[in-house]
């Protein structure tokens, strides 16, 4: 992977990583009433991760992100699900939303609501799934193991044969069903 590192692309990707993240959070925050939201914000954030991976190598993404992106997605689903379920604890409707409107020193007038928590969950899901898929594809096309060794335990069973590798002759599976 190091052979393709570029003097120009690398600093640009590093710089844009932060710019794009600021933009992603901006999209997330304005999403309730205006175009934007968790999905779009998550995609923008995922793009910056992919760019980082292209510039620095895919193993760097794992080193910078620290957590398995798929776990990030699972956390996002938990946040979104709990946001939906929580109002029921107080006898309100499933996915009912609540807002708080007020003024905060330095920030001015703000409008906060539970949909923001749901959107943050969506954000995490989108980032997690997109980054995971592209990192797996990127790693396996650049000669690395698709999953780092520590992660294999979460994605494979011991009995599983790797799907890549030379195509084997079709095993005899239950008689003559060759269709």
């Amino acid at each position, binding site marked *: 992977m190091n052979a393709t590192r570029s003097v120009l692309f690398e600093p640009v990707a590093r710089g844009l990583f932060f710019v794009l993240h600021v933009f992603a959070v901006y999209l997330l925050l304005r999403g309730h009433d205006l175009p934007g939201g968790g999905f779009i914000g998550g995609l923008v954030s995922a793009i910056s991760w992919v760019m980082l991976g292209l510039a620095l190598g895919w193993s760097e993404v794992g080193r910078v992100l620290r957590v398995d992106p798929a776990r990030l997605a699972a956390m996002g689903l938990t946040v979104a699900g709990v946001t939906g*379920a929580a109002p029921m604890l107080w006898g309100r409707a499933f996915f009912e939303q609540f807002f708080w409107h007020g003024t905060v020193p330095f920030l001015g007038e703000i409008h906060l609501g539970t949909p923001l928590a749901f959107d943050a969950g969506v954000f995490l899901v989108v980032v997690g799934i997109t980054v995971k898929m592209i990192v797996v594809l990127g790693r396996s096309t650049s000669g690395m193991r698709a999953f780092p060794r520590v992660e294999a335990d979460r994605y494979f069973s011991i009995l599983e044969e790797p799907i890549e590798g030379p195509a084997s002759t079709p095993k005899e599976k239950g008689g003559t069903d060759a269709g």
Partner: protein
Amino acid sequence: MNLVVAPLLMPFLTAVVVLLVGGRTRVGRGLTVASCVGQVLAALALLVRTAGSGIQVVAVGGWPAPHGIVLVSDVLAALMTVLASVTILAGTVYGVLEMPARLSHPLRLPLMQFLAVGIQLSFLTGDLFNLFVAFEILLVSSYALLTLEADDWDVKQAFPYLAMNAVGSTLFFCAAGLTYGLLGTLNFADMAMRSTALVGDPRLMALALLFLAVFGLKAGLFPLYYWLPHSYPTLATPVAGVFAGLLTKVGIYVLIRMCATVLPHELTGLHALIAWASGATMLLGVLGAISRNFIRGILSFHIVSQVAFMTLALGFFTPLSVTAAIFYIAHHILVKASLFLIGGVAALLNRTDDLARMGNLWKAAPWLGVLFLAQAMSLAGLPPLSGFWGKYLIVVEGVARREYVLVAASLVASVLTMFSMLKIWLAAFWNEDPTVVVHTEDPRWRPLAWICAGMVAISLTIGLGAEPLLRLAKQASSMAMDREGYARAVLSTGGKEVQP
């Protein structure tokens, strides 16, 4: 009121928590099984509540229908959630007992729970687009489960499943768009109210035919069943049991919901088409079953053939025949899932499910043979087992409507079902080939057989005491066919004021 949410919220939370703690850990496995038990209890509570006090509606987020999305539980939907949660419990426990934690696949349990979310949401939703979402959850989980421990051969077999269902989803999407264009709403209750004015309009008929294509594909009806019998045999036993029991039945449930509740009852051409497609399906399916010579292959083709009995009953479209269809669904989910599990135990004992290399099971495990025989005879429709009552009602309705060709087709299909079941029986149980070894020393088979016994006990209860379930099915069908009642219950549910 919020009880309606429980059958789909519980598997969702279980799935994400198990994803985080790991599907192979003791905590993850224990949590999943406990949650499955909880889901059965929640679904039962929902059924009792719905049967006792009428349609339960939840306006999600407090936004009332027709603008918000509603979750609706009538008796039919609640009955389906009970059946689904029981099947998923059996499949999950079977999977946990079959494989020690070390060897099991870490993603199977969470994916099964996501599959449960999709299935339960399809039953409970009251909104066409929400139904599309439910189908997608269900399908994506099933794609993953199909290829979870797949080798090249399995992937090849799974491909038609993916291709056909992707086409189905696209058509569904188009159908939803056309519905909105034609009726201006996607809420089932509102669709029911507005479509009444369009009776006789060819556009409504075209839309109904598109729905038939979409949901007939999911159910595995005549020209559209190619994906099913080749992909199911590649699945691991517990997953195959859940797929076989539930996935096609989701399609049938939606067909019933569409024909009985949403679309006007005057579309007799649609009903006749369903009936004739069913006649073709049941014969072709059972012929396919006879041509197979391994247990999972035979059983997979039987799904196709049996599905047609339910749609045939729906196609007759009288109150009694819809009752028969609902009764038949309940019977079929339990019997089919348990047959797959029994076949799995037999395959575990013989280390193969190729009928040419099986044998000696009757001598080694007679009770397994009894379980198999009970379910096989029930599938063929012998009295007094559960399959008989559904078929009896269908034949009675068919004769009353003078559909003699279709009645003959269903009887021929039943005899051929019996024939192919006897093929399994003779080759696997009765056959005394001295060269075949039965691995009774494997300690796993007894607990697994007990799970099968539990399923068989439930379906025997249905067969021997058919009256209560029949009453419930009758209540379900009259509630589902009461379009005004459904619409009134859904549209009168209050919520927040919708601001202009």
